[in-house]
């Protein structure tokens, strides 16, 4: 029925979002790109020009270390969150509608809650006089509070807590669409539950897994609030470095170069990932 409309009329629909994207996404990105090649003035000003100095500076030991740390944190956060999220999503997809709804609400409530509130709430649990330490000391298991806060542990706790809904939802949505008759067919043909999981269930959750991994990895890599709130001096990440270049050091060109480097790095990672999973991924996407 849409044939009767002229395609040209549909193009009109693209103007408002296109204009928005151009003004608030493309233009700023180009500005950042231009700045990253520009010269820095002494008092925080920027002089147009072309230099690769800022990019060279990234490769210096200290900054490279922060870069690698961010990658490591993002990688491990993704892995740990996945190990928690997959069982939840798997359980949900086979649960009754009632149980499904309850779990979904439990996942969505923190999702809708203000991020800072959630981080403060987490502090009251892992903090020095938080619930965990109070409990362990109250029961006499330890007599000194455990160092659970302002260190790597609390940063990971924050990241995992923050990422969990982003991973559960896409995995759940692909598992939930899995036709149960495929699982029954596999069992019927003599496969054990484990074989069925590995050959049927897991391959069909690949599209959801890819989405979940990207949703967790990319924002974690660039996050600066959680290391700021939950971390100590050893948990400085690339996001913190970029923020400090713009806010404190007033070195906008270097901050821009760091931003571009991070975008580039994440894009390499995502494109490798998508290419690597393309065969089974696109298949499953087609058939789900």
């Amino acid at each position, binding site marked *: 029925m849409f044939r009767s409309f002229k395609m040209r009329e549909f193009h009109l629909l693209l103007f408002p979002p296109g204009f928005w994207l151009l003004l608030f996404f493309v233009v700023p990105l180009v500005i950042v790109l231009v700045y990253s090649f520009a010269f820095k003035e002494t008092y925080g000003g920027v002089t147009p020009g072309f230099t690769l100095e800022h990019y060279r500076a990234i490769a210096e030991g200290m900054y490279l270390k922060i870069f690698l740390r961010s990658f490591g944190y993002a990688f491990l956060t993704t892995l740990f969150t996945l190990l928690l999220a997959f069982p939840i999503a798997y359980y949900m997809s086979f649960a009754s509608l009632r149980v499904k709804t309850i779990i979904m609400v439990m996942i969505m409530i923190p999702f809708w809650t203000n991020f800072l509130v959630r981080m403060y709430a987490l502090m009251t649990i892992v903090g020095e006089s938080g619930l965990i330490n109070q409990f362990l000391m109250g029961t006499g298991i330890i007599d000194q509070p455990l160092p659970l806060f302002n260190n790597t542990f609390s940063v990971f706790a924050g990241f995992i807590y923050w990422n969990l809904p982003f991973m559960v939802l896409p995995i759940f949505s692909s598992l939930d669409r899995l036709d149960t008759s*495929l699982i029954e067919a596999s069992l019927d043909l003599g496969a054990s539950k484990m074989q069925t999981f590995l050959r049927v269930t897991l391959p069909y959750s690949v599209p959801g897994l890819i989405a979940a991994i990207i949703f967790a990895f990319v924002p974690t890599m660039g996050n600066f609030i959680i290391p700021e709130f939950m971390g100590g001096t050893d948990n400085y990440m690339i996001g913190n470095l970029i923020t400090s270049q713009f806010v404190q050091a007033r070195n906008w060109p270097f901050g821009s170069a760091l931003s571009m480097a991070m975008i580039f790095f994440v894009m390499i990672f995502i494109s490798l990932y998508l290419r690597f999973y393309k065969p089974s991924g696109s298949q499953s996407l087609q058939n789900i």
Partner: protein
Amino acid sequence: MLDIISLHKSYGQNHVVRDVNLQIAKGEFFCLLGPSGCGKTTILRMIAGFEKATSGTIMLDGADITHLPPNKRDVNTMFQNYALFPNFNVAENIAYGLKMKKTPRQEIADRVDKVVRLAGLSGLEERMPAQMSGGQQQRVALARALINEPRVLLLDEPLSALDKKIAEQTRIELAELQRQVGITFIFVTHNQTEALALADRIAIMNNGVIEQCDTPRNIYEHPRTRFVADFIGNMNMLQGRVTSVAQGVATVDLEGAGQVILSQCDKPAAGTSVLFCIRPERMKLSLLEPKGYENGLRATVKSKLYVGDTTHYQVQLQCGAMIKVIEQNYLLQLSNEFYDIGEEVFINWSQTSGELVHV
């Protein structure tokens, strides 16, 4: 071979299958037929192991399989939606069962080859399920189940997803295939034509109970319950009371419509309330009074429908009941007997026709 003994399934207060007893012989083509929600699919799923029986026993070749998981039963299922693995090609789909049983590679290749030819899928081994027509997918599903040489093959509405022409063609192939492989087939359908055409025996189900289990001919010719009489084919049903039974000849007084005689009938005792059932194609319209070996009732033609091979008449008895009569058009042409709406006629039929069903 497959014995089902007082099988029962309920979800809470909802009794889906009630006290079902069945004995299915080796090599039999057995059909569970009934309207949707009658419990036929639940029985199939209990045999496959996807549903747990609430009570009762399922025995396969003398062994109790009631509580075995699906992968430990020598039973395979062909699913209604075929449930082909979309990320495997045809050959991989078919080989799945053998692979799971760690069959040697060469043997898998040989057996896949054989089954592919049997199912008429040669040359399609590399296709993905999404690239195939419904009929082809149906064959893959069948081949994937048959390659494991199960003792029983369960088919859940195997032809319902196909369009009519292909379903009719596939029906013939399915019957032929079953004869060739000699595996016991149990199939579930709501399509009575399919059931009558394919099955050696049919169990007709309604509300979780088996109403009648018999050969297609007996089901059609001698329905035992009102439900079966009504469910299978077209049937005229009239309330009546047996007035006398002598030497296999029963006289039935139809309420307000007159008397009919049934020879070859010794089931009901005199005085019983019965439902007199007769198929529309067993009756004919005539201007002549019934002959000595016939029953006849006066009626008025109310409507007539020409449908090509036959003409369907609706006629009204003097008591007001409507009766359907189906006449072969070629016979009508031979005798030049066409009746118009409003015409007064006799409906006549042989005293050997008709059935009595207890009410």
